[in-house]
């Protein structure tokens, strides 16, 4: 089982890098945009006060969440291409289970997300110094944790999206509103009360809150609610996707 997972993951990594445009899109573009933004906006907190916070000091958190959302969308896209193309059907006639297939893709996405974010942090260090209190280990862990929990949402969407054409719109329709309410674009206090309740039910809100906390030097102990919410989200998503997974 583990052997199959590792083998499939390795094969999918090789397949992924064989498509240069895909690699450029996932890793190259975000880093370039981030650098461009950082150069023009970052490093000067006093000017940045007039900008929305997500373009100011919070840019790294925004970038991380945005990249994670991008990974979810591409996870959904690739599974739907596999479903539509009959690749999943062929895999179905083997002892591979849907969770293994999805996990392999999640690992691939995770790997490239990690690479992208690490590059971002390295490249952006000049513009966005991490709060001195935050440990890099803690930050890395928080990034991994939030990315996995966001990818779990992708599990559910990827389990059912019928065709590749629908993958992008359906994925975006679910994720972008979550992103908008997550507190990374507009701070939670800025939302009307009703929307704030909705926002609190969405996993992305907790991911953003956790990341912002850790980024600014808070400890994990201050964010137990977020951690619990994200774990709950993960468990529900995995259980749900196992139930609703469609091979064709």
């Amino acid at each position: 089982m583990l052997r199959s997972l590792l083998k499939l993951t390795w094969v999918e990594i090789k397949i992924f890098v064989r498509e240069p445009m895909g690699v450029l899109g996932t890793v190259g573009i975000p880093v370039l945009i981030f650098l461009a933004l950082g150069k023009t906006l970052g490093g000067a907190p006093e000017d940045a006060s007039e900008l929305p916070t997500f373009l100011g000091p919070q840019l790294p958190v925004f970038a991380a969440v945005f990249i994670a959302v991008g990974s979810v969308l591409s996870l959904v896209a690739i599974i739907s291409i596999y479903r539509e193309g009959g690749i999943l059907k062929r895999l179905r006639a083997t002892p591979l289970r849907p969770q293994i297939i999805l996990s392999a893709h999640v690992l691939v996405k995770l790997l490239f997300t990690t690479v992208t974010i690490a590059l971002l942090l390295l490249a952006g260090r000049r513009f966005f110094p991490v709060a001195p209190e935050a440990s890099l280990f803690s930050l890395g862990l928080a990034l991994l944790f939030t990315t996995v929990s966001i990818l779990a949402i992708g599990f559910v969407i990827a389990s059912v999206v019928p065709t590749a054409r629908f993958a992008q719109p359906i994925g975006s329709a679910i994720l972008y509103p979550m992103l908008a309410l997550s507190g990374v674009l507009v701070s939670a206090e800025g939302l009307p009360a009703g929307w704030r309740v909705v926002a609190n039910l969405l996993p992305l809100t907790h991911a953003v809150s956790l990341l912002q906390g850790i980024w600014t030097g808070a400890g994990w102990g201050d964010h137990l609610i977020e951690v619990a919410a994200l774990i709950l989200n993960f468990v529900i998503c995995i259980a749900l996707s196992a139930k609703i997974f469609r091979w064709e």
Partner: protein
Amino acid sequence: MSERPVVQVSDLRKTYGSTVAVESASFEVLEGEIFGLIGPNGASKTTIMECVEGIRRPDRGLISVLGLDPHKDIYKLQHRIGVQLQEAQLQKRIKVWEAVDLWSSLYPHTVDGEALLEQLGLTAKRGSWFMTLSGGQKQRLFIALALINDPEVVFLDELTTGLDPQARRAIWALVTSIRERGKTVLLTTHLMEEAERLCDRVAIIEHGRVIEIDTPQALVSKHCPERGVVFSCDLRDAGAGLRRIEGIEAVTEEGTSYRLEGRGEDFVSHVMRFLSDNEIQVRDFRTVMPTLEDVFLKLTGHGIRD
């Protein structure tokens, strides 16, 4: 071939929405035999096969494969069967050897993948991306993947579609060798020559029903007892004499060439005896025997169906 059934299907029914694909199908495949499902397009061969493989869930009926229920025991069963689907794809950029290697990692017991590629003539293509293979090469790769776990039962849906005559013959030899190792094969095909050569028994499927099951020879003698003899000789107007041959039904004369049609196992011998008794010198002589194709057309009609 033993008498032990390896695949048992009884009263299978499968609908897609309001379309009844399989009305009712029952058959058994015995251990060590090559069993063929033949029938026109849309007859439901693939549907029946996929229900047996556990890929589709039937609406009704009992299926057992190696004593296992293809639905409840699917993961146990998948280790012991090999499946080639009629329409399948792999990742566009997966290399041939990577696919074989991946498949090998999924099963506890496997055969040598490189040897299999060699046998299927894919060694030169082992480093090529799946998307760059020709149709026949893809087909051969899928056959390799179906055999990688040394399965006890192999399911081949349209195994030689798109293959050139050489490859087809190589696959036939491969399938025959699978049987020689005591394995069981369930296949579908549109090529009656293939069914006649390979299959120990065939089931003819029509509109989601099994209408006949038997050996190809038995089906031919049961449904198409007609025999034909074509010869040419210098004799003119021999028609009247020829019409007295036992079992004869029609004589067609075209100049010096004659075409006789009759029925019965002995018809050809009767013709030969007549020719020698009357000391008729023939310049060529050939028999026209009905084949499985004639049986197939007779039982399933000639027109193209939906």
